[in-house]
């Protein structure tokens, strides 16, 4: 995995590139003694600004490359690796471009948005490093659809077993099979459904388990497995929802940044 991972892609080639870029920029900044206060208005400031502008456009182009499935322009994993490391380098370039001067204006707004996008990006990296499976729709090597089929299989088996049992039990099995994974959309964020029908069925069957028939005990086992599957699905959906929340921040914030960046560049030259 080490070589294959997006953070260590191609012997961490882009980490080295980004590190070199930062080192060069910091070195130039330290060596520069501009006649005015360091910032976007010195020659180095213009250079760092142009570099930062180019980086932002390229970083946002990752969204296009990700969707261009037929593109041969490098692997998406390579792009992601470069996206992460050059995105981090952007924080250094942008900070040097400001000359450590902030105010209440469009220029600082662009800078703050840049840092916000980078911060959300770091959050995304942490999410993906801790749960690589979230990058796909996979759970234990299975898709969510597979897991759904598994639930239906269990329900079919339970229905057959319940046919020889009391109407109470049959009702419990039916409730369990028609119960919802999440009762409402907000439960996706917590991953919990406190009113879970399968949970109720399992609880009730557990109470009646003493001296129960083998069929009923088998039914209990099947329902218990169903509950385990459900909990797994909920936990997975919860995790994936939060990765989507991350993208819901990362992408719109970067477009807000694009807007303020255009305003920043145009305004600087409008009132040169």
């Amino acid at each position, binding site marked *: 995995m080490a070589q294959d991972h997006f953070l260590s892609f191609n012997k961490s080639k882009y980490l080295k590139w980004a590190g070199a870029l930062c080192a060069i920029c910091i070195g130039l900044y330290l060596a520069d003694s501009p006649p*005015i206060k360091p910032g976007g208005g010195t020659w180095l400031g213009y250079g760092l600004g142009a570099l930062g502008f180019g980086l932002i456009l390229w970083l946002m182009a990752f969204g296009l490359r990700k969707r261009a499935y037929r593109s041969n322009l490098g692997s998406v994993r390579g792009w992601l690796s470069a996206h992460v490391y050059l995105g981090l380098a952007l924080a250094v370039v942008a900070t040097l471009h400001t000359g450590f001067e902030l105010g209440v204006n469009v220029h600082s707004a662009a800078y703050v948005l840049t840092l916000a996008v980078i911060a959300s990006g770091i959050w995304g990296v942490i999410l993906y490093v801790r749960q690589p499976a979230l990058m796909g729709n996979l759970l234990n090597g299975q898709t*969510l659809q597979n897991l759904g089929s598994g639930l239906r299989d269990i329900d079919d088996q339970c229905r057959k077993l319940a046919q020889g049992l009391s109407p109470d039990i049959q009702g419990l099995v039916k409730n369990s099979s028609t119960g919802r994974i999440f009762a409402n959309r907000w439960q996706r964020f917590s991953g919990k459904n406190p009113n879970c029908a399968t949970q109720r069925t399992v609880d009730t069957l557990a109470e009646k388990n003493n001296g129960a028939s083998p069929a009923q005990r088998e039914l209990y086992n099947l329902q218990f497995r169903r509950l385990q599957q459900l909990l797994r699905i909920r936990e997975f959906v919860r995790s994936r*929802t939060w990765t989507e929340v991350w*993208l819901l921040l990362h992408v719109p914030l970067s477009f*807000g940044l694009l*807007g*303020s960046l255009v305003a920043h560049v145009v*305004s600087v030259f409008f009132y*040169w």
Partner: protein
Amino acid sequence: MDHNTPVDPITAEIGGLQKPLKGRRPLSWFLFSAMLGLTLVLPVLAILFSPAAPSAPSDSSTPNPSTPFALDVVWNPGPVANAHQAWANDCQVCHSSPFSRVKDADCVACHKTTAGHVDPTTTKVSALEEVRCATCHRDHQGAFGLALQNKHFEGQNCAACHADIKKTMPETQTLNVRDFGQEHPEFRVQVLGAATGPTAAAGTDRLRRVRQASGVVLTEATTLKFPHDVHLASKGVRSPEGLVKMNCDGCHKPNSDRSSFQPVAMKEHCQSCHALKFEPALTNREVPHGSADEVLSTLREFYSYVSLNRVQLDGSKLSPAQRFIALPGKEDRLPTFVNGAGDARSRAAASATDLFERTSCVVCHTVNRLDVAGKAGTPGADLPQWAIAPVAGQHAWMPKARFVHSAHEASKCTDCHSAPDSKKASDVLMPDIAVCRDCHMGAEKVANKVASDCGTCHGFHMAPHEVKAQAPASTTTPLAASPAALATQRQTAQLAAKP
């Protein structure tokens, strides 16, 4: 969920859960448009529809427009300098046209009196033609940003032109300068030239800058007599109260900001010893330190009174102090006028002769007896006439350099000015470059020396009055008036006054 398709609930719900959270695209559009709209589109529209501004600082006839609701203030990249705070929300006062760098015309609209580096009417320097005000003066760098930049630029890059100034400007009088410590010519001191020739008679400016040479004391054509050595003698100088030890600050009082000095004034600094008494045995009255006419009229009136009232005059009874007052520093020679005899006119004439030629005026001034009639209608008109050579007012010694005395207060005056050795007022007591180099070296740091770049003493801009094109015809006091010229003026005035 789609109710028309017969899908079981679990498959349907899982299908729903697999759809990503909605809103990424609209939220992206919203943030993009909001940022672009609020911080670019609105300000640009406001600028395009700006009415003319009444708040423009200049009194120019076409003031720059003012942006409605100051919507362009979101573009302000940093606080403007304190002096510009009044227009901090009025961007177009300085930024008059879009996508163009701030124009010099916008600066000069207010800074009318700021002159360039050279006089454009006499000197053309191609390298300076590309320099804008904003090349050096960049605002939005904080309340004191401009002041800091001024300090920075003053010492920068002077040598780029001045190290070999003759190459670019063969006709210049300026010598090559690279660095104060290593290559800087001797100072040129501004002195008063001799009052001769047609220009002097016409009263034009006699100030000229003369280069110092080591071991040579420059002299100035002053009409004043003042031996610094006598007054600063270590044993003291004689006064009505006996020997008095005088110091520089007895006469040279700092001005209000202590950068330089107030003019020395007869009444405050000289007259306690050099009194203008003329009959010390009888009266403490003094003649006015003013025009010769006033002096002569005072004497004529006094001796008329003495004659009319038969007042006894006896100079032999003068006390030592009275004797001193009559002729400071020269006790042995009693003035003659105290024993004068005859009628009022001849007594006044004798007294005037003593005052002008022996005891008072002549002690400090260049006095010339004139063969002309006195000022018509004044009591002293029938007395002999004299002219006091005009004394030039204070002038700057080093007008191209900046020197603040208060910054050097810790030093003794005599560290730089060798006044105790000077016998004549014509000695120019300005220190030469070697004296400055005792403490100051060039821009590069030298152990135990003050690092001094060009900006330590020099500014970039000419003083407004130095630019001939801008200066009014003549604001300087006429310095020259030779006795002959004065006599001519007086005769002309008399002719004109006669019916």
